């Protein structure tokens, strides 16, 4: 409180406010990956599916910035085109988790009593099963494929969303403005829709951003294990798995998609943190 700055004088302080660099970087990464998904043709000039004979396992060069894989396909193109598959899968997964989880949490928190007990025991059960095992079971029930993998991953996160939204709904339900809303003649559903849901949603959305990162990771895991998108679809997890066979000679094949997954997950986490901090 004292120190050198105390003598700075009375002029308005010209403190340069640094923008949060990490957050800007995180948004940049997400924006870049999003544009890969929307217009992959702008970022890659090779076909992601057609290999060129005689160009197998080339190291990174100007023509192939990330080298080529065992079938002579351009790795950059596969990573770029893979963004659509991975992002759509993650979005679907988060969407499933968010809607189902929030609905369950809202029901439990707002109704209380038996509904609350039933929902929360269900959630406890879901949490007790290892998440990979749970998503594998769902895939086996639904069948293979990228959509089903996404649903499986989303199903696993239902428990987390339900827990958080129930806690938030309970908090908001105890506030005076909710009581005042009932006091001014509000019906149960109207109050839930107008006051409880909007006020409970902020931290749920922060969790959604966090789950987006985890979903990409989980989808990649499933892809790596061969439960996700079938080859030759470029999917990040699958790319890592395919590169595994050449790890000793062409390490970049696994590393490039691995680093992309890492960056996207970290960025989602950073953005989630900033969303979480904004809630009051």
């Amino acid at each position, binding site marked *: *409180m*004292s*120190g050198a*700055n*105390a003598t*700075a004088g*009375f002029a*308005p*302080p010209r*403190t340069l*406010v640094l923008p949060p660099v990490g957050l800007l970087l995180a948004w940049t990464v997400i924006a870049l990956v999003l544009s890969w998904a929307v217009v992959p043709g702008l970022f890659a000039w090779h076909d992601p599916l057609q290999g060129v004979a005689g160009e197998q396992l080339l190291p990174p060069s100007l023509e192939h910035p990330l080298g080529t894989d065992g079938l002579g396909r351009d790795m950059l193109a596969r990573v770029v085109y893979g963004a659509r598959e991975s992002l759509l899968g993650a979005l679907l997964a988060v969407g499933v988790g968010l809607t189902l989880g929030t609905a369950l949490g809202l029901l439990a928190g707002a109704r209380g009593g038996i509904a609350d007990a039933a929902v929360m025991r269900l959630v406890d059960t879901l949490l007790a099963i290892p998440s990979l095992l749970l998503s594998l079971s769902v895939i086996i029930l639904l069948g293979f494929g990228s959509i089903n993998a996404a649903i499986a991953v989303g199903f696993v996160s239902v428990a987390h969303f339900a827990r958080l939204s129930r806690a938030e709904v309970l908090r908001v339900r105890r*506030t*005076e*403005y909710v*009581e*005042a*809303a009932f*006091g*001014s*003649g*509000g*019906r149960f559903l*109207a109050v839930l829709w*107008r*006051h409880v849901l*909007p*006020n409970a949603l902020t931290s749920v959305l922060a969790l959604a951003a966090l789950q987006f990162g985890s979903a990409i990771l989980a989808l990649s895991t499933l892809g790596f294990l061969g439960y996700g998108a079938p080859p030759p679809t470029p999917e990040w997890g699958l790319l890592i798995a395919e590169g595994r066979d050449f790890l000793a000679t062409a390490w970049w094949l696994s590393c490039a998609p691995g680093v992309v997954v890492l960056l996207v997950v970290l960025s989602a986490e950073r953005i989630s943190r900033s969303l979480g901090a904004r809630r*009051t």
Partner: protein
Amino acid sequence: MNMDIALRPAPVAATTAAPLLEVEDLAVRYVSGGTARRVVDGVSFSVAPGEVLALVGESGSGKTTTAQAVLGLLPPNGRIERGAIRLDGTDISRWPERRLAALRGARISLIPQDPTTSLNPVRTIGAQIAEIFEIHGERDRGRIRARVLELLRRVGLEPAEMRARQYPHQLSGGMRQRVLIAIAVALRPGLIVADEPTSALDVTVQRRILDLIDELRREEGTSVLLVTHDLGVAIDRADRVVVLRNGTVQEAGPVRQVLAAPRSAYARQLLRDAPSLATPRVRPPLPEAAGIALRVEGLTHAYPVTGEPGRVFRAVDGVEFEVRAGTTHALVGESGCGKTTTARCIAGFLRPTAGRVLVGETDVARLSGEALRQFRRQVQLVFQNPFASLDPRQTIAAIVEEPLRNFDPIPRAERERQVRSIIERVGLPDSVLGRPPAALSGGQRQRVAIARALVLRPRILVLDEAVSALDVTAQARILELLDELQRDLGLTYVFVSHDLAVVRLIADTVSVLRNGRVVEAGAAERVFHAPESDYARELIAAIPGNTQGARMVAA
């Protein structure tokens, strides 16, 4: 306003000895989000040994920041821009944290505002008092223990051995404040900074705590810097007053002088607005012809006591009163007396265990479901805290409009017209309509809450401590508004408050509650001037500034 007011004789030392604390041209600014705001600007005052100086002002006036600067406890984003804080002639305003830490507790100590959050819940009272001796270098366990017990007796916490072993949750708010006072006086500091030491406490407890501080001050010759928003407290307890507003000194001088002949317009306004000093407005005589708007009969609300099956706690126990249409009935008492429970039963938020609440022919206690919902058009509740009772995500227009959307469908344009007219009615500009509650001051928010309650045109308004969270100035304006609305719209009020001074300004009839029972009831003027029960007398005597207020009324 010239009258002779008997005050405590000022300590002789005040005029002769060198000041213990001297604050000169202090300016403090806060930096947040890249913008700097100066909250204290050129404040100067001094405190003589043994003197009580009161810093008075509304919230945001910079009084707490000034006190924090004196203690070296400004928040991390606060900086002293200029000025000096001299303790015994040495400027401490630029001392590093380590030197200040040695000073705090030993030379200057703090009595914090909120006793409920200022003690560590997992350590015993004894250990927490002992800590201050340990911090300041005492190692002898036996001596520390003896001093702790002595301090506990000193602040009136008996039996000391038992209290030392107790945890904070086992003590009441007043007792916790005593513990904090014991910690503050432990090392016999020269100056005690008391930051709103009693604003979280009931009036009778407040009086005893202030008496205790006064007594310790007299015995030890300690100086006190008393930070308060309550001019009544300042007048009762201080030798001199410094009135702050927007970080600048508006008025400074001996209490007697400020009270009798305030020079600044702001001090004059504060004196006018302070409920304990204001002259009760002459309320029109009760309209005898008016019917009974609300009748409460044998109202009882009991909770089962947790852990003791079969035992119940009666929060409200056979409360009875009736309110004539167009008048104000006040429910007064200390926290835990059942006044809020009664109010919630009347407003239909709580179903009483027994008894009837008659609004016209309807018994509120029997209503449920759709009938209760329809009934809400007749009785509306205004909550205590306008910071919690408005949805932060809605705009003011949406908040006020909402009750209209809950009943018969009204076209949008008509709803908007009604919202505009009620917002204007409660004295707010049109421009607030699009704003969120966070952009409004406490007084403005409470106006919004009143507008929301009135938009359904209820007959009865239940006001649960509706002005307690506001500054005296905002409080006075809201009381005026309520008065005006009552006259124009013929409203009936049930006014719940712990503050007798406020009640006297607005109520026609009063019920004084204690432990869930009505101990005294009658016309407000009669209860104030000729209380029959000891408890009512005690409550009235505890109003800060009461002696002076009574004199002003008499003069």
